[in-house]
Structures are given as C-alpha cells and as structure tokens.
C-alpha cells in the first residue's frame, strides 16, 4: 500500500514538473517581462539593471528552480492586464468555480445513479430506450448550445431564472464567498450547474447502465436470485455495489473535467469564476495569469487523480493481492 502510494506520488510530482516546465517556458520566451514593466523610453542600461535584478540573466536551470519555488508558494507575479497579483485574482474567483463544479457534480451523480440503474435493470422498456436516445443527443449537442437553449427557454421566454452572474453572495469567514445561502444565489446556480452537469450526467448514466448489464449476467447474481433473495437485495446489495468500482474512477476524473469545462459554462452564463479569467487572459495574452491557471488546475487534476487511484486501491481488493505485477 505504502509503496503503491509512493509510486503514484512520484508520478504526480513528475506530471507537475512537466506542467511547471511548460508554464515556465511560456513565461520566459513569449513576451519579455522587462518590456511589460518599463516604459518605451527607458534607457537600455536601466533595462539591463532591471533584468539583472529580476534574475533574468541567471542560467535557465536556476530560473526554473526559482519558478518552481515561487509556484509552490503560490507566487506568480503580477497580471499584465489587471496589474495586481495573479494569485489574488485567481483565489478571488476560485470559490465561484469550485461551487459551480461541485453543484454540477452532485446534480449529475444524483440523477445518473437512478437513471443508470433503471435503464440497466429494465433495458427493454421504451422509457429506458427513450432515456438512452436522449443521452445520445446530450452527448452530441455542445455544452454552450445547451446553455443558450436553457437561457432562451428559462430566462427569456419563461422568465423564471436569471441568465447571468452569481446572484447575491455571502462571504464566509476565511474569505470564501458562497451563493448557496441566498435565494438569488441559489436561483442563479441552477441553469449553469445543469448545463455543466448534463454531459457528465449522460456519461455516468451510460457507464452505470453498461456495468449493470455486465454484472447482472454473472453467476453470483444468478446464485443470489436462486437463493431467493428479494429483487431489492440482489439489485442494490449485490449488483449495484459491484458496478461502483469503475464508476468511482470515472467520477473522480470527471470532477476534474467539470472544473475545466466550467470555462465554457462560465463564459455562457457570465459566471465570475477562474475559467472566465483564463479565457480573458488568452485573448489578452496575459501570460502570468495563463501559467498560474495552468499550474493551479493541473495541481487540482493531479490531486484528484491521486485520490481516485488510492480509492481504487482501497475499494478493489484484487489490486492488493496481485501487487505491482497486476493491472489490466
């Protein structure tokens, strides 16, 4: 167990170093930081002095070392566009993105589980087939289009829900802002969260259905039925429990995807999150923000991947018996 975790940890650090390298090179070779900081008429000698002071004349490896040390302390310099520390900009917007992703994940999972089990158990009912066809449409229609349709239907035509922003937010101790405690905040999160969660919802539903179909064919389910157990006990106690291993893996990975795909949803609903900041930074070539977002989101991904792998190890006893030789 310890060896497994250590090995995965080493891999995660390698990934972070590669990401750091990409962010570092982006920072170093696209655009000159000195040019961004001084005026047009600054003499060359002064520029050179600034260069020396910023450590830009140091060997590459030392500069990369400094970059990593700074990044580890969440120190990414000033945004070219906003002229304020990148870390503050990102942290200010972090709660909005995390809240949106988490609510989407909860909605997606809460709806996908019963839908997946139902379509798996009653695969020949027309309602199951309708759900499957609908999910295929859900995969083919792009997220931003679904968002637009939602806005048109629920905000423009029906006028039930707001189409942009977070509504009123409450600041919790520790600086975390939340919209989940006010009515307008709750109303504002419904459409974006549904839009963002829909793709994940269809994916998890299809996965659970496929896994259920697989498990229901196995001998131990037949045996459980032969023992005269109730349908409920067989379906939920035996079948569903065994489908959850791959579902946990995929859900963990999808959680990361939700945070990344929030870029699109935030743009449609003008949600004040990190994704929108990242998008603006791409349009304005605001390199410090771009590299900081990249490093932060990669860190989130790596941590999620690590947690999923460890969970997988805990849930699936076969991995423990086979040791490191196993894996399929």
């Amino acid at each position, binding site marked *: 167990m310890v060896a497994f975790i250590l090995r995965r940890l080493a891999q995660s650090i390698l*990934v972070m170093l*590669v990401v750091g390298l*990409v962010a570092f090179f*982006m920072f170093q070779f*696209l*655009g000159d930081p000195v040019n961004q900081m001084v005026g047009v008429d600054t003499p060359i000698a002064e520029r050179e002095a600034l260069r020396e002071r910023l450590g830009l004349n140091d060997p590459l490896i030392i500069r990369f070392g400094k970059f990593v040390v700074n990044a580890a302390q969440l120190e990414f310099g000033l945004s070219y566009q906003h002229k304020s520390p990148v870390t503050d900009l990102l942290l200010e917007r972090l709660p909005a993105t995390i809240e949106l992703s988490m609510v989407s994940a909860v909605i997606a999972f809460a709806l996908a589980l019963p839908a997946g089990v139902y379509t798996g158990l009653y695969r020949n009912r027309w309602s199951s087939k309708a759900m499957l066809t609908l999910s*295929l*449409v859900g*995969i*083919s*229609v*792009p*997220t*931003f*289009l679904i968002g*637009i*349709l939602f*806005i*048109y239907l629920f905000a*423009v035509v029906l006028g039930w829900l707001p*189409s942009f922003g977070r509504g009123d937010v409450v600041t919790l101790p520790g600086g975390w802002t939340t919209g989940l405690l006010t009515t307008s905040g709750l109303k504002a999160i419904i459409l974006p969260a549904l839009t963002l969660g829909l793709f994940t919802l269809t994916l998890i539903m299809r996965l659970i259905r496929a896994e259920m179909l697989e498990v229901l064919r196995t001998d131990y389910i037949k045996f459980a039925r032969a023992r005269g157990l109730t349908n409920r006990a067989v379906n939920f106690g035996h079948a569903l429990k065994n489908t959850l291993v791959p579902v946990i893996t995929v859900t963990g990975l999808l959680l*990361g*995807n939700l945070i*990344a*795909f929030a*870029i*699109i949803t935030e*743009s*449609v609903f003008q949600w004040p999150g990190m994704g929108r900041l*990242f*998008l603006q*930074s*791409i*349009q304005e*070539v605001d*390199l410090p923000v*771009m590299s900081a977002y*990249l490093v932060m*989101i*990669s860190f989130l*991904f*790596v941590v999620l*991947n690590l947690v999923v792998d460890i969970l997988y190890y805990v849930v699936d006893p076969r991995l423990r018996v086979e040791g490191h030789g196993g894996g399929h």
Partner: protein
Amino acid sequence: MTDTTSPKPVSAKPSLLYRIWDHELCYSFRNSPLTVAAAVVTLLLILSAVFAGVIAPHNPFDLASIDLMDSELPPAWTEDGEARFLLGTDNLGRDIYSTILYGMRISLLVGFASVVLSAVIGIAAGLAAGYIGGKVDAVIMRIADIQLSFPTILIALLIDGIMRGILDREQHDAMIIPVLVLSIGISNWVQYARTVRGSTLVERNKEYVQAARIIGLHPILIMIRHVLPNVMGPVLVIATLGLAFAILTEATLSFLGVGMPPTEPSLGTLIQIGNDFLFSGLWWISIFPGMTLAVLVLAVNLLGDWLRDALNPKLR
C-alpha cells in the same frame, strides 16, 4: 432475403461493384437504416458546404451585397420575414442560411484538417512506440499519459494562447485556420497513438513482419508498408468519431471568442453572435447554426458508432 437462396452462376467472376455491395461491411451498412440516414445527412451537409458558392442565395462575404436595412429580419415564414431570407438575417444584414453554408465549410475544413494532423502525429508516435519499444516507447507513452490526464479543450485553449504569444495580433488573425487546426490536432493525437501502439505490439511478432525483417527491409519501410495497413481499422473508427469531436471543439473555441472571427464566421462564431441578441428575441441567429452543428455532429457520431461495431470482430 430471397436472392440468397436462389442459385448464382458459379463461373462468372463477380464484378467489383457487386463485390463491394456484397462485402460484410456494406451488408451491415445496408441493414441499419439509422446508419444509412446518418450517412445521407452527412453527405448532404458536406456537399452543401463544398458547393456553398453555388447553393447559397447570397454571398455573406461580399460587402457590396449586404444592406444594413435588411438586418435582424426573422425567418421567412414568420410575420415580418421576407422571402429573400429563408432563415432570417443577422445583425449586419447577412442571410443566415447562406452564412450557415459558408460557416459549415470552415467548420468542416478545420475538422478534417485537424483529424488528419492528429492521425498523422498519433500514428507515427504509436508505430514508433509499438515497433521500436524500449525507451522510445516509455517516453512517448509517458507524454501521452500526461496529456491524457488533461481535457482536450484545455490543451487546445493553451496552444491557442501560446500561438497568440508567438504571433502578433494581425498575424494571428490572418493565420487563424492553421492555428485552430494545430491546437485541435495536437490536443487529440493520444487516442490514435495508444490504439496504433496496441495493434502494432500484436502485429510486430507475426510472421510477415519477421519475414520482412529477415529480408533486410528498413524498419521505417516495414512500419509504413507492412504494419500500418494492418492497424488501420481502429484508426478509421477513431478518425470518424474524432471528426465529430474536432468540429465540436472548433465550434467551442469560436464560441469562446478564441476561434474564427465574426468577419469569417464558422458555426460556433455564428452561435456566439446570436448569443448577444438572444435577449432581444432574435433567436434565429443562434438556433439555426446550432441545429446545423448538432445534426452534423450527431450524424458523424452515428456513423462512427456503426463503424466501430461493424469492424469489431467480437460483435460479428
């Protein structure tokens, strides 16, 4: 199914057309009405995009023919619509129907080109990893693993951002199509590489490869001439599904404002333009391009699904 029981002339060599018609792939195609429908829709959309210049009633890029007085007209069948503009006009007075046809041309062009790019990178990497093995394999697959742990849209956005840093604004706008192809192409090569590597690992130990090696063929020649044709089946499936995905990614990038500019709109750009006018009730600017995009992607996806099942020996 009556003709299968009737005896066929044994001596006559069946014509090429008949052999294609009788091939099991074609047989499974003929027997799936949904697939036939998807193929017809895809073909129609591709043809109408290619011949946009002939079909489209207006040329949305000809500034002389655009009249601002015609702007924001609803579709022809509604009360204020005009017969000249079947699906209405946008904020600049461009005919939506014509703009969709021209926009689809860009969407398909970027889609096809980025699929080719991903396939070339992926196949080369997969062949090298599978055939050479060892350190080459480890390095390539490690890079693939790392890239795979990030969503493609994020990587595409990042490459687009880097290209914006390298090129200045005018250069970037002038080269937007190659930039999009590059970002989408690079962000999708991993699947090809993984699949090709897997198949290559199997093929490389077969006798025909050993024979080729013994007669002293160059490894690159063996990879391309002998191994590659035998691993192309799965690649075709990935490429078809990848086309749908590439079209979606391009639309998403354009919608987010980092893709095609409004002066040269793809389907995604059109949807974005319409998004700004949704609250004024001008639904047709977004909805029609959106429907076109959804139908195109769905049809290509259905084709890809069918191809995957048809080529899968387990399901035969």
